[in-house]
């Protein structure tokens, strides 16, 4: 550990020569880089959208769900679509950080930090939607088992109750995992900061980290333990999201493949979002030496593999409906393929199945601009997929007399756009307030390479 402690063991202000070039380069983005007009413009846009988000939420709470297009029979629409979409984006961050750590994939090192930030922000936003869709969000704590005089007790067999626990524990663990990994880097920022306020803030956050061997020993153990916890947790979260659909009897939802399918779909959209963030991040802040073309190539390969599993699930769903000879399942499938929302289904296939096939080609995988475009198309396709799953099953189920269409209102769009803006705001603040790449892990990787280890 001597190499990695070099820049933290001489408090309070280390000799600048002792700071490794990697740490200097990455921490300078936070400490020394002036605010660029581009970043400020992006921030202004994100702030404006966040304001829209806030207004939409306040108006929703003051008025009620009626401001959305939701109505019987389509009682879930944009709200739950947004929820599933956002929580799925979080999957890749946890997977990159935890699963790739446990399987010793060293290429994760330069992408895990911003992917974890992406996870935390996405899960925070995702967690808002189930609360908002309650109608009376101020009673959301009724989902928790607490002593009360209303004889109120959660139905433990309901996936909606598991939902509450799954999101909560996932959020807590994501934040802990992210923060744990940040501590050594926060100490570098503390030591290199020149302004008093920054020294105090980073100093408090660094929890007195001095880079002692004992610190590192505790750190390594705790980090691996958290990673070991994160992997099953992330599986449970997405299985639970799937069960919220498949445990019910609605045609098109009640399907045993949903839990594994939702995990693959979450990885698919999460890795696509990681690409959407990585490509601009590395070109704006000049990090191409760390987030290399090889990294993008690897992310693209994983995206392609997940996309193939998702395509397999679409196929199996169709086959299973016809194999079952179940009247309602067959109708729902035909309605998806030919009904009023057929354009959503076919757009989804175009975005999630057809377009990602370009990733078979090495030249596409090594072209950052192409990857950016494909990843945005996949993100769009995954949103359409959730919308398709939710709305097509609800709008025409068992009772033709209650069939109806769903039409989004301006508030549906406002809250979707607002959530994107809020996510953008958090990411923009993150890249300027915290190191977007793990400095000490990069340094360690470099030291190992110098020593000739793989």
């Amino acid at each position, binding site marked *: 550990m001597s190499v990695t402690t070099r820049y933290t063991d001489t408090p309070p202000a280390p000799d600048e020569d002792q700071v490794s070039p990697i740490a200097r380069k990455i921490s300078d983005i936070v400490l020394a880089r002036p605010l660029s007009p581009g970043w400020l413009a992006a921030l202004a846009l994100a702030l404006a959208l966040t304001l829209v988000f806030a207004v939409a939420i306040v108006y929703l709470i003051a008025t009620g769900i009626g401001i959305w297009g939701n109505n019987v029979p389509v009682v879930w629409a944009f709200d739950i679509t947004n929820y599933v979409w956002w929580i799925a984006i979080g999957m890749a961050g946890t997977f990159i950080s935890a699963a790739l750590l446990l399987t010793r994939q060293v290429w994760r090192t330069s992408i895990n930090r911003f992917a974890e930030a992406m996870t935390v922000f996405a899960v925070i936003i995702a967690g808002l939607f189930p609360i908002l869709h309650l109608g009376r969000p101020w009673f959301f704590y009724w989902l928790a088992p607490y002593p009360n005089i209303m004889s109120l007790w959660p139905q433990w*067999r309901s996936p909606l109750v598991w939902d509450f626990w799954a999101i909560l524990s996932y959020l807590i663990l994501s934040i802990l995992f992210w923060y744990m990994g940040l501590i050594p880097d926060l100490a570098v920022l503390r030591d290199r900061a020149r302004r008093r306020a920054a020294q105090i803030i980073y100093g408090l956050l660094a929890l007195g980290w001095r880079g002692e061997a004992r610190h590192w020993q505790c750190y390594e153990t705790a980090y691996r333990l958290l990673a070991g916890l994160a992997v099953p947790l992330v*599986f449970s979260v997405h*299985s639970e999201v799937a*069960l919220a659909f*498949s*445990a*019910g*009897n609605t045609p098109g939802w*009640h*399907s*045993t*493949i*949903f*839990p*594994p399918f939702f995990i693959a779909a979450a990885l698919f959209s999460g890795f696509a979002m990681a690409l959407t963030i990585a490509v601009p991040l590395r070109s704006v802040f000049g990090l191409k030496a760390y987030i290399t073309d090889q990294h993008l190539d690897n992310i693209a390969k994983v995206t392609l593999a997940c996309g*193939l599993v998702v395509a*397999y699930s679409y*196929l*199996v*769903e169709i*086959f*299973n409906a*016809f*194999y*079952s*000879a*179940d009247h309602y399942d067959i109708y729902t499938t035909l309605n998806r393929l030919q009904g009023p929302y057929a354009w959503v289904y076919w757009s989804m296939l175009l975005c999630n199945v057809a377009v990602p096939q370009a990733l*078979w080609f090495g030249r596409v995988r090594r072209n950052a601009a192409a990857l950016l475009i494909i990843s945005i198309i996949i993100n769009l396709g995954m949103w359409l997929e959730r919308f398709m799953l939710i709305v097509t099953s609800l709008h025409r189920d068992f009772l033709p007399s209650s069939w109806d269409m769903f039409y989004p209102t301006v508030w549906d769009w406002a809250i979707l756009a607002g959530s994107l803006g809020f996510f953008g705001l958090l990411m923009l603040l993150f890249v300027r307030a915290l190191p977007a790449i793990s400095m000490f892990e990069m340094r360690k990787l470099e030291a190992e390479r110098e020593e000739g280890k793989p």
Partner: protein
Amino acid sequence: MSRASVSRLKQSASILAVTALILYLLGMVLAAQRFFPSYLVVWLFCLGISLGAMAILLVHQLTGGAWGVSLRPFLQAAMESLPVLALLSIPLLFRLADLYLWARPETVAVSGLLQQKGWYLDPSLFRWRTVIYFALWLAIAYALSRGLTQDRRNIAAPGHRLGALAAAGLIIYAVTITLAATDWVMSLTPVWRSSEFGLLVGEGEMLSAFSFALVCLGWASRGPLALSLSHDLGNLLLMFVLLWAYLAFMQYLVIWSEDLPGEIAWYLPRLETGWRGVGIIVTVFHFALPFVLLLSRRVKRRPLMLTAIAGSLLLAHLVDVFWQVMPAFRPGDYMPRWSDALAMASIGGLWLAAFLWRYAAQWPPNAAIETPGAVHHA
């Protein structure tokens, strides 16, 4: 392994093959109708090892890793036993009415559901599909086996991987195994369907193949395994166990929570009759016990322990296949019969003979790239 032990291996393989063939003919002649359900169980179990081996080899072509190199000889030989299973499927194809309700015209005539499902569950379509599955599987196995042999004899460029074959092969495997699992197993209960079943069967096949290869590695390597290799193999086995348990439980949970007649038709005979005990055995030995043991770092670093766990998992998988297939023929009666033992000895014996013969055919290996970590002695 020396030249003498290779010829000994070939000799035992041929003795085994002749004995198994005699037993097989005995079973066919003496008790054809009773013999076929047992036949199906053992045939599916052996097919699972061969196909699972093929799938793992394909995955290894994409990912690489020392674990795959050490297991490769056994996986390759298991995959190369596939033609025997293709031949053994022929008698089954002519006795479909003994196995499947939907293949009996008199049953279909009185069942509206079976008539509706006739577009898929039809004897001649079933036979055609089986021919197509085997044609595809044998083609992949042939191409992969050729590539691996060239690799071993250093004919191909060093570091050469069969990436395109692996990707195409895995896609074909995923689709065909889903349909084959529907054909051979799911349709035993014609009213039942589960969209996850193909994944569950495919994963179970890979788990049994991996366990089989681990047992073989324990048998073939006299010297100690490298600790880190043993640890990695243990972790991979743990991953297979977890994934299998996850898929099996999710299928059960989704069906349990909705409690629909057509869906619980699969689980009632398997869990609410005498078969419940077998289900519990599967849960304990296919999941709980190996899961707890494989969490331990010390267990994973003891090759003998690892071999024992893999062996018990392999047996548990056989029980699992038995538990999936047999309740359709013997509702409530879980005791194995002599026909089961006969099928195990004959079909299992034929498959094992083919495996040993293909394994012996790999020698002499190019020692430089063969099985790093595992030390082979004469």
